[in-house]
């Protein structure tokens, strides 16, 4: 019965049991490792996949990474239903239970403080995209699309005409950007007012997200569960007057983006 210990999250003891059929990474059901006032949610994982070298190799395999991330999230999701956990970074692995206990003991005070801060709160993700409107932007214009129908430049009569057209196009493009960024800034300000804390993530890579358009804002908001409905409605109301933009809401998440000590 050897194996490493994969730790998903740390939380306070919770009353409601997790679903009996819940499985996590490596298809193994997570178990609770209780140490004083803290619980670590732990799953046994095979050494041949999770010791340092094989894990490093696995992390370069997008399919493996994706499956592991989803299995991890599966457990965190179930846990978030019954408590407000402190999630750990993907693939945090210990040799054995006593390693996990020592870690809990060493960080007990920090964990308790952070858990207090996150208690009863969830994370919402909000992204703003500018919709692709012309062939000059976005990743999905890989040669198949013809010139845009509305603003087709037509044949330039002379070199001067051509340059003027190019200049106008560039100006339109810049103005569009400015509007999009202004919208994102205002939205972020308004959502920040409804949240207890915020984090700005790097814009997402369109090759990985496969989302159309360009990601302008990628932010996370820490919101209490009781305020969440109002927060979602606030996001929903932003569909007012921003043509050419798209807002995406994800969540509720466990407070992944707010688990650090630096707040």
């Amino acid at each position: 019965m050897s194996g490493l210990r994969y730790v998903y999250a740390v939380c306070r003891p919770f009353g409601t049991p997790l679903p009996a059929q819940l499985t996590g990474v490596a298809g193994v059901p997570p178990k609770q490792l209780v140490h004083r006032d803290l619980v670590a949610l732990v799953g046994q994982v095979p050494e041949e996949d999770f010791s340092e070298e094989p894990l490093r190799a696995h992390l370069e395999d997008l399919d493996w990474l994706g499956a592991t991330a989803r299995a991890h999230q599966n457990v965190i999701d179930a846990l978030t239903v019954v408590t407000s956990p402190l999630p750990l970074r993907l693939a945090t692995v210990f040799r054995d239970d006593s390693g996990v206990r020592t870690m809990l003991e060493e960080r007990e005070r920090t964990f308790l403080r952070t858990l207090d801060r996150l208690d009863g709160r969830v994370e919402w993700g909000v992204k703003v995209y500018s919709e692709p409107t012309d062939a000059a932007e976005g990743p999905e214009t890989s040669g198949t699309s013809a010139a845009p129908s509305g603003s087709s430049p037509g044949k330039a009569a002379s070199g001067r005409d051509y340059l003027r057209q190019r200049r106008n196009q560039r100006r339109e493009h810049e103005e569009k950007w400015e509007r999009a960024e202004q919208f994102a800034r205002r939205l972020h300000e308004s959502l920040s007012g409804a949240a207890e804390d915020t984090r700005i993530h790097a814009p997402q890579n369109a090759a990985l997200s496969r989302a159309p358009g360009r990601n302008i804002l990628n932010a996370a908001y820490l919101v209490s569960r009781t305020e969440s409905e109002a927060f979602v409605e606030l996001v929903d109301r932003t569909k007012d007057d921003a043509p050419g933009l798209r807002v995406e809401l994800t969540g509720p998440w466990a407070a992944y983006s707010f688990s650090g000590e630096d707040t």
Partner: protein
Amino acid sequence: MTVVERREVALVDLLDRLLAGGVVITGDLTLRIADVDLVRIDLNALISSVNENVPAPWEEML
């Protein structure tokens, strides 16, 4: 404009959180895995290798 609420979690949203968020525990006890920068860099390499046939759009985006 449209507000979209996705039912299924996109992998990229997951990775935003699982690779950039969450408590990082390092030390002798851990196997010292989730090295942020390492994973980040590898992830970019991954994406380019996955999309080798597609022109990389993020070059002009950054």
